């Protein structure tokens, strides 16, 4: 009677996994930097990225016994991080939440500093950034990213395509 979604990284399942359970510390060391760098891409701000990554992981720590039995603990943390970032965006003023858009004539090649690249990314719509970070940086499939963003995989692919077009138009991205 139950309908089950094919892919849901947050779904809890009965694990038949005989491996030794991963400790939170091991999980943290495996996930933190990658997640933090992804959030840096989302926020454009290192301190905020660190804060969001730690908060998302703290929530996983809070209920670690349950989280680690999930099919994908990373998926749980990624979803938490995405939700936290959205809450953050709702809190801050519209004028503050976006870095100034880069000059239309700017290009990736011309963006010699990391700040320029981040600024360019932050100028993308949030949905496109989320899709880019989840798929291109964190390595999820479009369907997995869709499960986290609660949209279908096709929409994720569409967002990534539009992001690429935008980046290409601004920076001659290959």
């Amino acid at each position, binding site marked *: 009677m139950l*309908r*089950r979604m094919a892919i849901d990284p947050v779904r809890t399942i009965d694990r038949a996994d005989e491996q030794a359970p991963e400790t939170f510390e091991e999980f*943290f060391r495996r996930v933190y930097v990658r997640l933090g*760098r992804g959030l840096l891409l989302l926020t454009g701000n290192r301190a905020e990225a660190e804060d969001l990554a730690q908060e998302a992981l*703290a*929530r996983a720590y809070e209920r670690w016994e349950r989280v680690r039995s999930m099919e994908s603990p990373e998926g749980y943390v990624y979803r938490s991080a995405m939700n936290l970032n959205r809450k953050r965006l709702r809190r801050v003023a519209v004028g503050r939440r976006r870095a100034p858009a880069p000059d239309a004539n700017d290009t990736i090649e011309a963006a010699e500093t*990391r700040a320029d690249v981040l600024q360019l990314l932050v100028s993308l719509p949030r949905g496109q950034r989320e899709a*880019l970070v989840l798929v291109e940086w964190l390595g999820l499939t479009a369907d997995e990213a869709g499960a986290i963003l609660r949209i279908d995989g096709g929409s994720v692919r569409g967002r990534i395509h539009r992001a690429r077009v935008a980046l290409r138009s601004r920076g001659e991205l290959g």
Partner: protein
Amino acid sequence: MSDLRKLFDEATAGFAAAEDDALRRTILRGRQRRAVKRIGAGVTGLALTLVVVALAWAALPLDPGVRPLVGPTATPTISRDREVAGATLYCWTFQADRRCIERTTPFVDVAGGDAAGHPWEMRMFAGIFTGSVVRAPDSDRDPPNQSLLVVCRRWRPFGGGEWQCGGTLDDGSGMSTGLGEPTDGPPLEPAPPVSDQTRPLQGLEDTGGFFSGGVFGDDVMGIQLWTPDETHRVDVTVDFTEEARAELFGPFPELNPYLKLAVVLVPGDVRDVVYVAYDDDGNVLWREHDRFP
């Protein structure tokens, strides 16, 4: 490495690598969150206790009596056992070991029959997170390979024991309704026959639309009862307070799921219970197995 990934790698190369500090801060945050949650749970628990006491108090006029429910050997019986702090505790006892599961809420009996004349009997607990056991009294006459979906609704919130139930079989044939024992208050609103109200069921996901008028709202709880061969199953949906649901579904409160309870029926031994929670899309989010004493 893709062009984008390379770009991202370069752009974030300066991200802090001070993992140890970050780990310490994260664990500290997690512990603080746990502590806050415990306090919140304590407050919620107190509130729930008050609600349960109020429910039981309101339902005191009910006299559930003792009646066998299921199975020939380990027949559970229910009796009013004792009173604690003004709340009546009902004892759900299994003859096998005489141990008792106490519930603070009363129950109502509902009897009916399907379109083919098979009798069904139901005992509903009205209140917070209390289950029900439903079974045809004569198993030989069970319609084979069919499930009976029974849905009950409460006529007045916290009115005490006023339930109406009805259901359908897989083939769409209806089952007559029954009313729980009324207590005080105004007369019950007359209920049209369930067969006139039901429509093809899509499964438990559709319980909100089972009765015309959508009387269920969001607070529903489903219970599935299966025979061991899984050819027979009874699904019951009861009202379920938001507080109790939040308590049960604490790990994922943001998902606001319905809670489905699956109760595995073993002939003569109704003990195994599987709690399954699922979201609005029917995805299983949480599963827990329990065994009655």
